[in-house]
């Protein structure tokens, strides 16, 4: 089970609201490479993983993604808190304001609602871990674009850089988990719960 800790994984203190940046950053909340998708992907995939290390790493990275989700929503909130509807509209958030006001809705930068179609769960550890490696690179790439777009505000760039770096670490750990499984599969005899001779 999960237990909430009343703190962020890494501090977010944005002094100047800037709805234009919120419009971009919300993509890492509920967009195609965002944190909800990451958390749901890993927390779902862990169930059918065949060995100890891959179960643990998917469980623990999936859990960390929930903390990142909270950081991203905190950024969106601080960038839009107290901003007038007129200024939201000027920043391109008129449509968003119509449906969600100052709330944080899981959607992409272009306004598409979060969809589980952005992730896959196959019960094939090679397919799942390869997807996870790609997902981490896509999230890293998105954070780099956001860092470029937000370059003017160091308060925004700082947590984005932290989140980007976590993607790199996750990629490394998933790579090790995948190597580990491939090593086992290449042995003439192997014993795992799920993988049978084929």
């Amino acid at each position, binding site marked *: 089970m999960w237990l909430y800790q009343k703190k962020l994984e890494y501090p977010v203190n944005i002094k100047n609201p800037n709805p234009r940046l919120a419009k971009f950053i919300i993509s890492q909340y509920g967009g195609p490479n965002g944190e909800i998708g990451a958390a749901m992907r890993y927390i779902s995939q862990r169930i059918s993983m065949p060995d100890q290390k891959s*179960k643990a790493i998917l469980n623990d990275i999936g859990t960390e993604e929930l903390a990142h989700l909270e950081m991203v929503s905190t950024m969106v909130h601080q960038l839009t808190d107290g901003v007038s509807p007129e200024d939201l509209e000027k920043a391109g958030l008129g449509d968003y304001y119509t449906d969600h006001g100052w709330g944080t809705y899981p959607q992409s930068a272009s306004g598409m609602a979060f969809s589980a179609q952005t992730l896959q769960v196959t019960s094939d550890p090679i397919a799942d871990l390869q997807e996870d490696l790609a997902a981490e690179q896509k999230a890293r790439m998105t954070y780099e674009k956001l860092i470029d777009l937000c370059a003017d505000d160091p308060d925004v760039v700082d947590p984005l850089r932290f989140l980007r770096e976590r993607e790199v670490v996750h990629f490394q750990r998933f790579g090790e988990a995948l190597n580990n499984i491939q090593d086992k599969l290449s042995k003439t005899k192997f014993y795992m719960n799920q993988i049978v001779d084929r």
Partner: protein
Amino acid sequence: MMNENCKNINSEKEALLKEIQECTFYIIELGLYLDINPDDKEALCLHNKHANHLRKITDKYESMFGPLTINCPCNKWRWLEEPWPWEKGGND
């Protein structure tokens, strides 16, 4: 004899885990109630009682049977040990 010992250890583990689950549920339920009724002294008192008890039995469980969270200090990384809660035997 060996089997008997194992059985005793397993039943102690199960009993302690069940106690932790019950105690955690008390806290969840009281927490929801206190979120809406924060001035209810009786509920607060019950919450304290269970929160203190949970701390004690969680320490006991983790020192005997391994970590329940990754915050648990340990000499050997027992976090990897199976079964996980969704697996056979991981939940009884």
